[in-house]
């Protein structure tokens, strides 16, 4: 499995854990009242901030782990060669961009579907907080689907065009 696949899987799993943590909080006794949109929005912003910070930490740790892994695996080579291998692993070339483009397409479909579902929830008289959760859930699902599709293309392969 390639470095990009492993990194994407780790990021996606971290996202799933964060979503699970949010669901546990939302269904718990300390969650805000359904009509209190301001509190729900604040809670969501906090979780988004935690998610962003977690993602940055994961990326940093992954780069460090990659550098150490390559240095150990290629220890028969000199330091300069190891540096070149590390640099080459972190280059984002056209293949990465194509896979990113195709996986984000799936993410956009999820978000678009979630937006329509949120509108349907509002139109059918559900609480505003429900619509907010449907929309944010769509973003979360879209992000997870992007990761899954990305790993699929990295492992199975992709054609240019």
């Amino acid at each position, binding site marked *: 499995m390639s*470095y990009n696949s492993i990194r994407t899987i780790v990021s996606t799993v971290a996202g799933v854990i964060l979503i699970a943590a949010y669901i546990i909080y939302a269904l718990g006794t300390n969650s805000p009242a359904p009509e209190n949109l301001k509190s729900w929005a604040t809670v969501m912003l906090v979780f988004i901030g935690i998610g962003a910070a977690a993602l940055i930490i994961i990326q940093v740790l992954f780069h460090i782990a990659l550098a150490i892994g390559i240095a150990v695996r290629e220890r028969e080579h000199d330091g300069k060669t190891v540096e070149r291998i590390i640099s*080459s*692993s972190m280059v984002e070339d*056209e293949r*990465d961009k194509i896979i990113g483009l195709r996986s984000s397409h799936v993410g956009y479909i999820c978000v678009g579907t979630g937006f329509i579902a949120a509108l349907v929830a509002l139109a059918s008289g559900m609480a505003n907080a429900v619509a907010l959760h449907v929309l944010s859930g769509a973003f979360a699902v879209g992000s997870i689907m992007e990761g899954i599709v990305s790993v699929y293309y990295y492992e199975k*392969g*992709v*054609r*240019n*065009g």
Partner: protein
Amino acid sequence: MAKRLIITNNIRRLRFFANEMTQLELAERAGASRQTIVALEAGKYTPSLEMAFRIADVFGVPIGEVFECRSEEENS
């Protein structure tokens, strides 16, 4: 509707005859990552025209010697 084309390459063989060039060296000279070269050789990626020409330039051969294509019907 246009027939689907299957594109293959001779990169591994050309690397061998180019003084056993490594995948890393080819990646650096072609402006790609080593993982992309690995994917190319495994048939898991079809490059853009620009990258295909760059790889051909690295080996100093025409692009037709690096990449070959045939239709899906011929393959079956």
